[in-house]
């Protein structure tokens, strides 16, 4: 448990640092010093326009974390809620929810992205919303399956027969019990949004080099990666750290122990 607190503390410190860290204005170009190596002035060196890569990583990090955070929050909360509702209520509601879930899973997210951005313009917030809803399906299915399992447990059926209110049973008794597994799933999938977002650049969305995030940086620097590998290694390292954090922060330590079988 201690480990986890340290992990969270480090993460919080990094996020705080991203907002407070001194960084240069990423709007400023310096065409006399393009592709400069790391130095005291530019910790990570400069990019093709002579912009400070460290500052770009900081500014882009805020944007990337925003997209990841928004998307994950939406998929997690909406997905869990709908899954529980479908499993608990059953009937027509369950059918409708299953229907919507299937639909979000069927239609590839990139065509949704293309159409939505043609309609409303493209922005990180919209990307967050879209991935949030697009990735919601697996959360719904998982939470539905877990809730169905819970419903068969004795204490829940006892509560139902006692006549406790539905929201109370669902939120106070079912949710805490399925929460752990939901979080593990979330931890394993949250950071993939960063790369999904980067992939949109291929279809022409989120290619705005003037307002970068980690995905955009990766996309635009891929042209120079063989000459200046630093430019892609640094963003990849950042995304990797994020993935590692999510993976371990939400990895269920106690479940690991329960999970121990007689053979371990």
């Amino acid at each position, binding site marked *: 448990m201690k480990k986890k607190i340290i992990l969270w503390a480090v993460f919080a410190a990094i996020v705080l640092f991203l907002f407070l860290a001194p960084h240069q204005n990423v709007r400023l170009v310096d065409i006399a010093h393009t592709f400069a190596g790391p130095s005291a002035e530019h910790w990570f060196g400069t990019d093709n326009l002579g912009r400070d890569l460290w500052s770009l990583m900081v500014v882009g990090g805020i944007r990337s974390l925003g997209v990841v955070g928004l998307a994950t929050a939406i998929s997690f909360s909406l997905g869990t809620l709908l899954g529980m509702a479908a499993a608990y209520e059953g009937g027509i509601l369950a*059918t409708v929810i*299953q*229907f919507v879930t*299937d*639909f979000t*899973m*069927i*239609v*590839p*997210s*990139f*065509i949704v992205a*293309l*159409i939505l951005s*043609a*309609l409303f313009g493209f922005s990180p917030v919209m990307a967050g919303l879209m991935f949030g809803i697009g990735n919601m*399906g*697996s959360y719904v*299915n998982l939470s539905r*399956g877990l809730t169905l399992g819970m419903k068969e447990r004795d204490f829940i059926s006892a509560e139902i027969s006692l006549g406790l209110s539905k929201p109370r049973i669902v939120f106070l008794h079912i949710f805490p019990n399925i929460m752990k597994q939901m979080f593990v799933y979330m931890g*394993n*999938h949250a*950071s*993939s949004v*960063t*790369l999904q977002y*980067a*992939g949109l650049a*291929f*279809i*022409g969305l989120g290619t705005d080099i003037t307002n970068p995030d980690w*995905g955009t940086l*990766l*996309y635009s620097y*891929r042209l120079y*990666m*063989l000459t200046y590998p630093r430019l*892609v290694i640094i963003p*990849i390292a950042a*995304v*990797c750290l*994020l*993935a*590692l954090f999510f*993976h371990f922060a939400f990895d269920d330590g106690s479940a690991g122990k329960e*999970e*121990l*079988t*007689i*053979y*371990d």
Partner: protein
Amino acid sequence: MNKAVRFIIKWLIVFFAASILIFLLVRMMPTTPAVKWLDTLHLPRTEANIEWITHRMGLDRPLAVQYGIWMRNFFRGDWGVSLVSGEDIRARFFAKMPYSFSIGISGILIGSAAAFFLGFRAALRRGGICDKITTVLTIFSQSVPMFILSIIIINALGVRLRIARFFTGDGKYAMLAAILLTAFYSVGSLSRIVRQGFREEMGKSYVKFAVSRGFSKETVLFRHAYKPVLAGLISAVISHFAYVFGGSTVLEFAFTIPGLSTMLVSAMDSRDYNILQVYILVVVIWMFFVHLVLNLVLRALNVRGQES
């Protein structure tokens, strides 16, 4: 029987809902195909020009008529023609589908087969080498973009060693690379699912009993516990099959494979309503068959799976 009828009715509703939705959505986009067409050719957007193009594209008819014609022809097997090039859309789809489908289907099948073995090994020894590999693969596939890895592959094999031609010739190297990359990127998360499944089964009494009778745990798990795990894997793979359409986008671009995604993006670029509409319907039909087949497989495995 009742179930089968409900399944079909459900998909019919999905089909029509999707068709109406996409029909209206494409027409709500602010820039029309006529304007896009003029822009591509650097032509002035005068009213006369726009009117002429719109008429030529058949988009000046009432919406209900356009929808009716589209649906009627679709069921007759006539999927219409591209607004821009006038090509037959069905022929074009059938020419493009093999690329996206073989990348998606072979990639996912290879990925899941590998994931099944890796997950099995990982479950046997907690914290063992295979267990670690699954974690590393999962993290890797979430932090190194496919497009970066593909550039490295092309550069190594095509530019430095010059043993493969990815862009000219019959394109077999590009397809091979795309299939293997798809498999590689799906192994990580799928193997975690398999591992989880096996570990759950390991705790069950029938496994414990068999092991106590002297069978090796490997044999017990592999011979007797595989069914529920396989069912779990298949349920997870269902959602990956939507990927056949969307997921190969990056690979199609990185290896210039002329698949469905490339076509769709250029159709979107020119606002080719007809192609966009048909695309969504094809996706729905494809998912219908995927669900149908996988439900049948799950039934054959005789476990209570997630029948949707």
